[in-house]
């Protein structure tokens, strides 16, 4: 073994030197003598600069990819699944998050998530983005400007409340939705992000009370949004006529495009969460893709057996479920476990949607809980199972990462993260819904609901074929 690796080294050195010698011959002789301190320092600065620029390029692209997931990705995915009288209202709910959460993030949200605070919530040190400039924040990402980190994390803060809108589609007032989700991003999202990713956070993998592994937001994004979705669907009640009236999707084509955009955007979501453009990003990229593909298969096969036909909606829903489940695991597992995670998530989420929803009778209109809540919880658990130090030795150079390395205790840490995400989301959502319901009223009138939210809330129509 030792001899073989020694031989490999010699071979590598030989390969690298031969062309270098060939190139060196015709050029002018290099200046002789030892390099000065000054030269070494400037060389180091140049190397650092090159790495920083490379990382920054990838992180800015990733940030744009994550925004692409909300608009147009999620807006189209959800928009196609509702009836045509509600498409604009549904798309506007996602778009409103792009506006509202951005403003809140700049004022307060970023500071509450990533500022120095206690174990549960950040402080006010970055209020109005104070101190957030082009210098890196070494607490989080030492090679990119803090503003890059800030805007990248903002895109996560945007999509998370937007995911909830699938549960209350076709029946909530625009005003109530805007206030509810704005408050939600401060009361539920920022604290959860701080606990898992923030310095000194309760669940932070490095130094937290329960070091829980969440690479790109399985608990922070998907469990919180999924559980809040379930609570909102139950609190708000069913749509008029559900489940007796048929409410099939009005445009599978739009949903199809949306889901494919989500898949592409997810590379920014997961591979970007490496916060650099190195090998870990590649690992997360590959895992993301593998899980999505396997989950599309898992959902389709289950559906084929269960209902007799493989549907397009099943295939794309499966892909999204796989992307959700791999999110926490993407930077911790190897490619074959990623395939397995996807396959299981596709089958599991489809059964959540086919069986559990209809048995319990709640109207989670577009299955935000069935896909994000269920898939996120499952993914967070399987992260503890398959995480390995071969991919990410986050607990120290030789320390085991997950159960795959024999560290079964990680499953307890993962469960703690999941439990806290469930409790914070359920309680926070319930309190906010109660307040907004008393002050504004959550639901549109039955007349407005049958007219459709496009006309009743916005005074326009998605499709006016007579104009």
């Amino acid at each position, binding site marked *: 073994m030792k001899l073989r690796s020694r031989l490999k080294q010699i071979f590598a050195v030989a390969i690298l030197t031969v062309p270098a010698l060939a190139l060196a011959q015709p050029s002018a002789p290099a200046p002789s003598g030892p390099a000065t301190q000054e030269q070494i320092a400037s060389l180091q600065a140049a190397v650092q600069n090159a790495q920083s620029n490379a990382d920054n390029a990838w992180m800015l692209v990733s940030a744009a990819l994550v925004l692409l997931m909300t608009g147009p990705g999620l807006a189209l995915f959800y928009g196609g699944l509702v009836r045509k009288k509600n498409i604009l209202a549904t798309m506007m709910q996602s778009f409103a998050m792009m506006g509202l959460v951005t403003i809140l993030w700049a004022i307060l949200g970023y500071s509450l998530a990533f500022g120095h605070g206690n174990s549960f919530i950040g402080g006010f040190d970055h209020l109005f983005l104070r101190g957030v400039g082009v210098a890196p924040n070494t607490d989080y990402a030492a090679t990119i400007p803090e503003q890059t980190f800030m805007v990248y994390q903002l895109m996560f803060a945007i999509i998370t409340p937007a995911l909830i809108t699938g549960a209350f589609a076709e029946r909530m007032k625009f005003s109530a939705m805007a206030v509810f989700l704005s408050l939600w991003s401060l009361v539920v999202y920022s604290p959860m992000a701080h606990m898992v990713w923030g310095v000194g956070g309760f669940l932070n993998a490095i130094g937290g009370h329960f070091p829980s592994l969440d690479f790109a937001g399985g608990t922070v994004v998907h469990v919180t949004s999924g559980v809040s979705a379930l609570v909102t669907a139950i609190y708000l009640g069913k749509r008029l006529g559900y489940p007796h009236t048929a409410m099939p999707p009005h445009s599978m084509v739009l949903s199809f495009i949306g889901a494919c955009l989500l898949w592409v955007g997810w590379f920014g979501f997961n591979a970007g969460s490496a916060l650099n453009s190195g090998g870990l990003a590649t690992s997360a990229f590959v895992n993301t893709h593998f899980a999505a593909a396997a989950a599309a298969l898992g959902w389709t096969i289950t559906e084929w057996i269960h*209902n007799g036909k493989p549907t397009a909606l099943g295939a794309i829903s499966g892909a999204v479920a796989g992307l959700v489940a791999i999110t926490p695991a993407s930077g911790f597992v190897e490619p074959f476990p990623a395939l397995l995670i996807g396959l299981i998530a596709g089958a599991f989420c489809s059964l959540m949607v086919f069986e559990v929803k*209809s048995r319990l009778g709640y109207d989670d209109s577009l*299955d935000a809980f069935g896909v994000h809540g269920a898939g996120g919880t499952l993914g967070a658990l399987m992260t503890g199972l398959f995480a390995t130090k071969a991919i990410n030795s986050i607990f120290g150079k030789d320390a085991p990462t997950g159960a795959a390395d024999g560290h079964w205790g990680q499953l307890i840490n993962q469960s703690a993260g999941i439990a806290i995400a469930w409790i914070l989301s359920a309680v926070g959502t319930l309190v906010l819904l109660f307040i907004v319901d008393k002050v504004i009223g959550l639901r549109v009138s039955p007349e407005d609901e049958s007219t459709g939210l496009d006309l009743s809330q916005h005074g326009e129509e998605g499709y006016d074929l007579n104009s």
Partner: protein
Amino acid sequence: MLKIEAILQPSKLDAVKDALLEAGIEGMTILEARGHGRQKGHTEFYRGREYTVDLLPKVKIELVVTDEMKEKALQAIIGAARTGRIGDGKIFVSRIEDAIRIRNDEHGETAL
């Protein structure tokens, strides 16, 4: 004068239109319609929920012809639209009292 209303499978519209033109019928109105007869509907699946779609897309052709043209027009429609399977459609014939060409006030068969 007679009005012929034919409800057809949308896929047969072009064939019927061509057959009518060939038979010498010059004017017709086409409506997109939804409905069902004995064919009933079909079922669709979305995320495991089964939906029965009982009103299927159809097209309806309306034309008004002179009494002499009746058989020719009916044969043209039947010939082009029949597949022999359930769901081919129906034709209704009714008598028309008058027809008026808006452009020049012509009445009766000359207005057709």
